[in-house]
């Protein structure tokens, strides 16, 4: 099985820690991820707001490149897209061309003009799905060297990895991440906001309103006893990590990490190699407290 890696723009910049933790985790499970050569931006939510056909073509160019990389094999190429916006943009265009023949026709023509072809032989995968469904929780459990006993985690899925296409989990109450966290020894807290919107780009454009959405999530997670929050999207991580301040002072200090960072820690990979130093709110105090509590 070929797993190609589609990083997307955020994982090369504000979300670097996601890439830095994803790659060693997959490596240590024997799934080296090869980066899709010359990938382009997925279009995110912005392209769909401006130009529909262009948004389809952006996503399709990546799918076409992935398929070309896979060669003539009948086996589908698995394209791993960790960013929620990328994941959805790629899946969405697949649904659109499957459901609307005229979109399939027009995009095929446009791709051909640029010397590209997409025959439909790519499966877009989220790393969470690969870890739980392909690798399996048993294999993950057996790889754990330093279980995160006592670490209470709020599992935050965000919106776009389960909506509107719930490929591998429930659109409102998903459990994949909770099960993964349990497998590495952590304790997921009961938390009903796991797929509620973090504000997306609104935190930058209409700050008062966007930040309110983020703060609600953090406050509820703290109230539920979480010592950290595991995210699966670079924009969620950014919003929740960066906007916990009120008038310059920290209103809450809940460390917001990528789920891959916690898996990496449980595998015994040092935090430095997982990009843990890049967050605004460090995870170390929560880890120390959890270790102390589980030894008592």
């Amino acid at each position, binding site marked *: 099985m070929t797993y190609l890696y589609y990083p997307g723009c955020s994982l090369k910049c504000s979300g670097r820690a996601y890439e830095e933790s994803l790659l060693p985790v997959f490596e240590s499970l024997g799934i080296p991820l090869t980066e899709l050569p010359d990938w*382009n931006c997925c279009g995110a939510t912005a392209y769909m707001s401006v130009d529909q056909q262009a948004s389809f073509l952006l996503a399709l160019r990546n799918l076409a490149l992935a398929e070309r990389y896979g060669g003539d094999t009948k086996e589908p190429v698995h394209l791993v897209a960790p960013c929620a916006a990328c994941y959805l943009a790629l899946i969405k265009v697949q649904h659109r061309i499957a459901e609307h023949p005229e979109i399939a026709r027009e995009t095929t023509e446009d791709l051909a003009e640029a010397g590209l072809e997409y025959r439909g032989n790519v499966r877009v995968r989220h790393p969470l799905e690969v870890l739980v469904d392909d690798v399996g929780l048993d294999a993950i459990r057996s790889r754990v060297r330093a279980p995160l006993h006592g670490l209470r985690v709020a599992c935050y899925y965000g919106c776009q990895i389960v909506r509107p296409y719930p490929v591998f989990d429930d659109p409102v109450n998903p459990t994949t991440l909770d099960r993964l966290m349990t497998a590495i020894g952590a304790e997921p807290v009961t938390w009903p906001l796991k797929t509620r919107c973090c504000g*997306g780009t609104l935190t930058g454009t209409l700050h008062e309103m966007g930040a309110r959405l983020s703060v609600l999530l953090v406050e509820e997670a703290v109230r539920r006893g979480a010592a950290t929050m595991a995210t699966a999207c670079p924009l969620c991580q950014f919003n929740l990590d960066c906007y916990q301040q009120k008038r310059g002072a920290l209103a809450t200090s809940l460390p917001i990490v990528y789920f891959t960072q916690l898996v990496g820690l449980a595998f015994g990979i040092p935090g430095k190699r997982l990009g843990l130093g890049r967050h605004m709110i460090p995870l170390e105090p929560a880890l120390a407290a959890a270790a102390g509590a589980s030894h008592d």
Partner: protein
Amino acid sequence: MITRLTKSSEGPRWSAQVQYESKLDPDFPDAIARLPGADKLWGCIQCGTCTGSCPVCQYMDLSPRQIIAMTRAGFKEEVLGCFTIWLCASCYACTVACPKQIQITDLMYALKRQAIREGHHPKRFMIPALAREFFHLVREQGRNSEGILLLRLYAKTNPLGAVRNALLGLRLFLRGRMGLRMESIRDKASFWKLMDRGPAEANGKKEKVA
């Protein structure tokens, strides 16, 4: 505190604007309902589940349910000029909850595109401005460069905002999470060829984006 976005202190624009039924645009809903995602528009039963599931409905000038009702009735100016469509952050909560399978998030996208194309959106409003800056940057380079995008956006809409966010920018820079390097793809020639192919929106015309 909930601040509802409205254009004037007199309340939402739509309440003041439509006075005669003859001013409605009966073709507006048909053009929208032809677009993928919005095609189930006519099945709406006005139950309000979309509004109830929306995490930002309390900030909107028109609720998602009202957007559907007003789109169907032909309130084109009011719908395309409202804030609501721009507040939708694409979380798809309404889309999965709708009992009539209307893809409301995609309806919002269709309305956003038409509002940008026809210049209806509120001026100097940062949300459509972000979409357009993002669009141009990616069309140029094939990839997004977060730092450059933000600088361009603030320069166009709110230069003071850049100053206010400078501290956060610096803290991100120190952690290697923000920079001003221009990211781009290698094979730009074929990429531009692909992106210059015109979109075939509902009316079949090439979309022009200023």
